[in-house]
């Protein structure tokens, strides 16, 4: 489902003396449908960078990055956007929304974007918000004023509302209490069971061992270590 072939990444900082930072070189790995893989390594090792490259958020200097057969590294913007709408979900650590838009609308949006009816989208969104213990009286309010944990749960609801065949999860359980963490872990299990390929970053070891099939240490991708 997700396959990386000889991928390399560098950052060139033109405005800071054209410093070149080699982040990773010659990375190859593959993740099958129904598999959950954890990226590990110390802070700064390149876990989030790798994840953002798979999402097409960061550019890739060399190699191929195939998600469901689409090479994210070389695809046209509209191809990447279609891929993100239909195939590849991403739950980031932070919620980024248009101010003033109600929570229910935020969670519905991914389904509306792929042409589902408003009724279907709202029913599914309500189901997830309930599951994630967001009280119904907050659904009509913008999540920008919510607490950190609530925002993260809204973010997760939005990420899981559509059944993406491939998902990227950046610390989905950070800043959640035990009860909500269990809900998120069960959502991940469900996604795996329906055949989603998942790449995740979990600092929480318990969560990692509960859902992940294997771990990939990104430190080994660094050209400095090699």
């Amino acid at each position: 489902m997700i396959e990386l072939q000889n991928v390399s990444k560098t950052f060139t900082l033109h405005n800071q003396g054209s410093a070149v930072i080699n982040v990773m070189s010659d990375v190859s790995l593959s993740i099958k449908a129904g598999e959950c893989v954890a990226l590990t390594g110390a802070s700064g090792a390149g876990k989030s960078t790798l994840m953002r490259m798979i999402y097409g958020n960061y550019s890739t200097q060399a190699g191929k990055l195939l998600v469901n057969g689409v090479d994210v590294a070389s695809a046209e913007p509209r191809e990447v956007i279609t891929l993100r709408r239909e195939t590849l979900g991403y739950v980031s650590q932070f919620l980024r929304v248009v101010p003033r838009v109600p929570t229910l609308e935020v969670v519905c949006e991914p389904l509306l974007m792929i042409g589902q009816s408003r009724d279907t989208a709202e029913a599914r969104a309500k189901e997830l918000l309930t599951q994630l213990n967001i009280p119904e009286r907050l659904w009509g309010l913008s999540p920008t004023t919510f607490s950190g944990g609530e925002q993260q749960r809204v973010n997760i609801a939005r990420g899981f509302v559509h059944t993406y065949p491939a998902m990227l999860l950046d610390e989905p359980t950070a800043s959640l209490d035990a009860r909500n963490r269990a809900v998120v872990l069960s959502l991940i299990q469900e996604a795996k069971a329906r055949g989603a390929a998942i790449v995740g970053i979990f600092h929480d070891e318990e969560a990692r061992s509960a859902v992940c099939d294997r771990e990939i240490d990104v430190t080994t991708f660094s050209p400095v270590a090699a």
Partner: protein
Amino acid sequence: MTPLLSVKDIRKTYGSHIGCTDVSFDLYPGEVMGIVGESGSGKSTLLSCLAGHLEPDQGAVNFDTRDRGLIDTVQMSEPERRMLSRTDWAFVHQHARDGLRMGVSAGGNVGERLMAVGDRHYGDIRSKAVDWLERVEISETRVDDRPSTFSGGMQQRLQIARNLVTGPRLVFMDEPTGGLDVSVQARLLDLLRGLVRDMGLSAIIVTHDLAVVRLLADRLMVMKSGRVVETGLTDQVLDDPQHEYSQLLVSSVLQV
């Protein structure tokens, strides 16, 4: 898939000064493209050339017309181009008063575009106008008021209603949220996003506000001194800019 708009090698100079040069791109149905760059980078000149407000010195702006397929609008006759700008195209100006008729009622502003494409039944025109005013969150009770009595944000929303009532396929926007206070901006952005999604619009948005393109645009074009220096997926250009100027632009944004 046929692009909706295919731009080839556009160049516009003002005497010896370059307005914009070497610009080529394809825009596909449903795509929203942002054009960013500092003042004087040529983004408004380019938009004017694309929308037929300025004649480029060279190049072609091919539009996928409903009846004849891809046609170069630069070579079109003036009446044809005017017809296009009343039907399949829309242009949202930075200053609403440039796109509205200030002496005509709000309903009249919306209705005028419908009459221009042949609607004659007054009752239908009025009810469509009221419907659109509601979609842009202007109360029905204001339908007979002149836009000169509206606030800046309302005028901008009225301009959008006037432009979208004929169901265009391509919308050009020049700083659509410029000059509005931030709370009105957020509301307008939300409205535009919904309209783009529900109507399947394609749009080209010129702005210097990176937050606006992040929310609205699928892809981005960064201009500097009349040339395109970087293009790509919006979040990729903003989060991992490759060109020296794009890096400077992105790192210069003040954090709130």
